């Protein structure tokens, strides 16, 4: 029957490593839920059974950045919080992607005032800007599908030039 019968009969499949790795990566994008304010409620609804983010292989929301591929920055980022967001982003292993969920995260939104960073692209590389206040869960799923498209089309050689982070000195040691 089908593939198995073909393989037993000296069959083989040709592909590229890039295509194989891209397919594996796009099917298991583990999000880092950086839920800072109200957008996080919609993010939780996306993870719930009605919208069911696990259809896209992203149900594994890890609360440690070490195991994550995409950071969902859901909520208003203040100047004080920006350092925390950046630190968590730096702790995520490469390759990594960022979704700026909602207008506050993308541009500052209605918080046009001194404590709010006017768009997280001031200190983070952003892949997807997601409109809405807050965006609906299907909107977030669309952003996730866009990220999957981007991951699928990423070649391994594109990561070769990423410089290693310099070790941070603490207390002059």
């Amino acid at each position: 029957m089908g593939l198995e019968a073909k393989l037993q009969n000296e069959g083989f499949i040709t592909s590229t490593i890039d295509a194989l790795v891209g397919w594996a990566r796009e099917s298991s994008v583990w999000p880092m839920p950086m839920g800072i304010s109200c957008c996080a409620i919609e993010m939780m609804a996306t993870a719930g059974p009605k919208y069911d983010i696990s259809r896209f292989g992203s149900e594994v929301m890890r609360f440690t950045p070490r195991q994550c591929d995409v950071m969902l920055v859901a909520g208003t980022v203040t100047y004080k919080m920006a350092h925390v967001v950046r630190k968590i982003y730096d702790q995520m292993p490469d390759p990594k992607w960022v979704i700026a969920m909602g207008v506050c995260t993308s541009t500052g939104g209605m918080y046009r005032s001194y404590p709010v960073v006017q768009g997280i692209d001031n200190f983070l590389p952003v892949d997807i800007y997601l409109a809405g206040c807050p965006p609906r869960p299907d909107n977030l799923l669309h952003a996730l599908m866009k990220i999957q498209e981007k991951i699928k089309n990423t070649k391994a050689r594109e990561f070769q030039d990423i410089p290693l982070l310099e070790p941070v000195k603490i207390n002059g040691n």
Partner: protein
Amino acid sequence: MEIKEKLEKLLTEKFPETSFELTEFRGEVSLKFNKSVVVPVCEFLKNNSELEYDQCVDVTAIDWAKKKNRFTVVYHLFSIKNKTRLRVSCDIEEHEPHIDSVSSVWQSANWYERETWDMYGIKFDGHPDLRRMYMSEEFEYHPLRKEYPLMGIPGDQPLPKK
């Protein structure tokens, strides 16, 4: 007896040299006096058996953006026993604004005064730990003052490197 008349009688009995300005608007009583007697008056308001304003609900300030009496510090008080509220306020000058801390009278005033210091730059003399509440320690301005721009001053708060 109405709260306003009761306050007027008790306060003039206790502090005959100080002038008190008592106003009532739609049942809300406000009390205004010189800032030099803020601690003894607040102690009296709290400990007098007829008044008993034992809860300090909020301490904040107003920036009027004018030369004379630029700031006003406002205290909101509540008496749990009598179920009455009182607004107490004192005017402060623009140059080196300071007022005595009432955190020794009400414990809750401690953090409210820190917040007011953070936002308006009003020093509370005798406060046990006058640090900033919301902004970072390195921040040099007081953002709710009228001269501080809404969008902040570029570079006054550090961002992580991209």
